C-alpha cells in the first residue's frame, strides 16, 4: 500500500545560516494520525509547508500518496488539505463565503459545494454564524472555520499546523474530536504540536524534531517509557541544598535527578511510591523541600530527557553553534525508538 507521506533526508535552509530542516526522514501510514512534535523554531512548519507544496525543499524527497511534491505539485495539491499556523480566513467574507471560495479554487462544482459547505458548517457548529463576516468570529470559531476550509475538497491527506494553539480548552477538545472522526473515515492526518498531551491523545506515531533534525520517533507510549510517566519537582532552599538533595535522591530511580538552580526534577514511573521514598531520604539527610509537585511530563521534559537540555536553552545554543554555509551536512540520526 502506498504510504500517505514519505520524507527522505529533507533539507531546507533559509538565507545561509538558518537550517530549518537538516536531513529529516519519516513516513506516515495511510489512515493514521501522525504527530510532529517540537518546540518553536524546530522546523515543524517548514516540513508541513514543503509537504503541502508551499515551499520547495533544497534537497531530499517528499512524497504525498506516492506523488513527489516538487515534480507533481498539482497532483499533490488536489489530494491534500492544509490548515496552516494562522487561521487563514478572509475576515471580510462570511463563513459560508470563505468555504465557497476555497471550494471554487479547488474546482468543485457549485452544487457539490453548496451541499459540502452547509454540512461542514453544521459539523463545526458554525451554521448560525455562517452568514456573518468572520471578523466577528471568536478565535475558536475562526480556527474551526479554517479547519473546515481545509476539508472542503475531501482531502485524502490533511495537514494541521498547530491546530489548537491559542484555543481555549473546550475548543481544543472539539478540534480533537473532529480530527478523530476524520481518521475514522480514512483520512490521513499529519498534525504538528507543541503539546505532548495533544500528541499523546491523538497520534498513533510521532517524531520529535529539534533544530531540523529528528531526535526521537515512535509511539507516544515508547517516548514516555523513555522518560518516565511522571515528573517529581522539588523546590529547595538554595542551590547548594538542591545539589545535596539530588545526590541523595540518586538511588530512587534509574535516571539521575536533574538540578536547575534550586529545583530538583526526578523522572519517575511510580509517582506516589517515589514521593514517600524521596521525602524519607531527604528527611534522613535533614533537607526539607520548600515546594513539591508531581506532574505529567511536558514536551519540555521530553526534550530534557532526549537531549539533556531545556528546549529553549538548547535552541539558543544551537543557533550560535550552527556551522557556516559551507559546513558539511550531518545525516539525520534516529533517536531512540
Amino acid at each position, binding site marked *: 500500500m502506498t504510504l500517505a507521506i514519505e520524507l527522505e533526508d529533507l533539507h531546507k535552509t533559509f538565507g545561509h545560516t538558518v537550517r530549518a530542516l537538516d536531513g529529516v526522514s519519516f513516513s506516515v501510514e495511510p489512515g493514521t494520525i501522525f504527530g510532529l512534535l517540537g518546540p518553536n523554531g524546530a522546523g515543524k512548519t517548514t516540513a508541513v509547508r514543503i509537504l503541502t507544496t508551499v515551499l520547495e525543499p533544497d534537497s531530499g524527497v517528499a512524497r504525498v500518496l506516492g506523488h513527489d511534491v516538487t515534480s507533481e505539485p498539482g497532483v499533490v495539491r*488536489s489530494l491534500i488539505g492544509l490548515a496552516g499556523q494562522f487561521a487563514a480566513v478572509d475576515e471580510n467574507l462570511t463563513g459560508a463565503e470563505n468555504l465557497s471560495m476555497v471550494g471554487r479554487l479547488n474546482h468543485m462544482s457549485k452544487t457539490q459545494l453548496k451541499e459540502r459547505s452547509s454540512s461542514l458548517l453544521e*459539523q463545526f457548529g458554525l451554521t448560525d454564524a455562517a452568514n456573518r463576516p468572520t471578523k466577528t468570529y471568536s478565535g475558536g470559531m475562526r480556527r474551526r472555520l479554517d479547519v473546515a476550509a481545509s476539508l472542503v475538497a475531501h482531502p485524502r491527506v490533511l495537514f494541521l499546523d498547530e491546530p489548537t494553539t491559542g484555543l481555549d480548552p473546550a475548543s481544543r477538545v472539539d478540534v480533537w474530536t473532529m480530527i478523530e472522526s476524520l481518521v475514522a473515515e480514512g483520512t490521513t492526518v499529519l498534525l504538528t504540536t507543541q503539546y505532548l498531551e495533544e500528541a499523546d491523545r491523538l497520534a498513533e506515531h510521532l517524531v520529535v524534531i529539534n533544530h531540523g533534525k529528528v531526535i526521537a520517533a515512535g509511539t507516544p507510549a515508547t517516548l514516555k517509557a523513555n522518560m518516565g510517566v511522571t515528573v517529581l519537582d522539588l523546590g529547595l532552599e538554595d542551590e547548594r541544598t538542591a545539589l545535596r538533595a539530588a545526590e541523595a535522591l540518586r538511588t530512587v530511580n534509574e535516571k539521575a535527578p536533574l538540578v536547575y538552580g534550586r529545583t530538583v526534577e526526578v523522572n519517575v514511573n511510580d509517582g506516589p511510591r517515589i514521593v514517600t521514598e524521596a521525602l524519607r531520604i531527604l528527611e534522613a539527610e535533614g533537607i526539607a523541600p520548600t515546594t513539591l509537585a508531581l506532574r505529567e511530563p511536558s514536551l519540555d521534559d521530553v526534550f530534557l530527557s532526549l537531549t539533556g537540555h531545556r528546549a529553549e536553552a538548547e535552541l539558543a545554543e544551537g543557533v550560535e553553534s550552527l556551522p557556516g554555509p559551507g559546513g558539511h551536512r550531518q545525516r539525520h540520526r534516529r533517536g531512540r525508538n
Partner: protein
Amino acid sequence: MSATTTKIPTPGSPAVGSSPSGGRLYWAIADMWTMTKRNLIGYTRVPEAVFFSSVQPIMFVLLFRYVFGGAIPTPGYHYVQFLMPGIFVQTVAFGSIGTSIGLAEDLQKGLIERFRALPMSRWAVLAGRTTADLFRNLFVMALMTAVGYAVGYRIGTNVGEYLAGILLLLLFAYALSWGFAFVGLSAPNSETAQLMSFPVLFPLTFASSAFVPLQTMPGWLQGFAKHQPVSVVCNAARDLMSGLPKPDLVFPPFTSIVSNGPMNSTVFWAIVWSLGILAVLAPVSVRRYRRRAF
C-alpha cells in the same frame, strides 16, 4: 461528520483538482474571477475604506485648485484644465498602494500560504487582486469626474475622447498594480508595504507634469520628469480630456506614423509605457508570489 459526506473521492475524480468542464485556461480565468469577487466583496464590507481613500485625492483637488493653483501660470487656458487630468493620474497611482497593502495583509494572515497549497492557477491571486483594484479605480474615476465638474473642469475635447482618457488611466493603473503587487509580496507586513510604496510614488507623481508645467523645473530634473511614465500618461490624458496644446512633447508625433489618426504621440507612448510596465512587472510579481518564503 454526517453520513452523507463520508464519501472520499479518489484522485482524479471530477470533484477535486481536475476540470469537469474546460481546460487549463478555463480554470485560470475561473480562479481569477473567484479571487476578484472575493476582493470586491471585501470592498463592499468595508465601505469606509473606499470612502476615506477618496478623501485624499479630493483634498489634492481643492489644494491645487484653490490654494496653489493661482500661483501656477498656464498661459492660454485655465489651470483647472491642466490640473484635473494630472490629479486623475496621481489618484490612480496612489491607489495602486492598495494592491500592495492588500497582498501584504493576505500574506500576514496566512491566506497566501493557503492559496499556494490549493490546486489553483499561480496567477490567480495577483490577477484577482489587480482586477478588483481595476474595478475600484473605475469607481474612483467616476467620482473624480464629478469632483472635477464641481470645481469648474470642463471636457475640452468630446465625451468619446474623455472616456478614452479614462480607459488609458485604468490601463496605467492596472500596470502599476502589478508592480505594487511585488512590493506587497516583499514587505514584512502591510504597514511596511505602505511605507515601501511611498518612496517610489512620491518622486514619480510630484517630479512630473501632474501639477505644474515642466518648464518651471531645473534642467536636470526636467530630463527625468519629461520621460518618466507619470508625465507621459498625464500629457496623454490632457490631450484626450482637456485637448490642450502640448508643451511637453518629447516623442515624435504619433500622427506622423499614422497620418490623420485620432491619437497623437503622447497617447501612443502612454500605452507603450503601461504595457511595458505590465510585461515586465507582472511575471516578476508572479515569480515573487510563487517563491516567497514566509
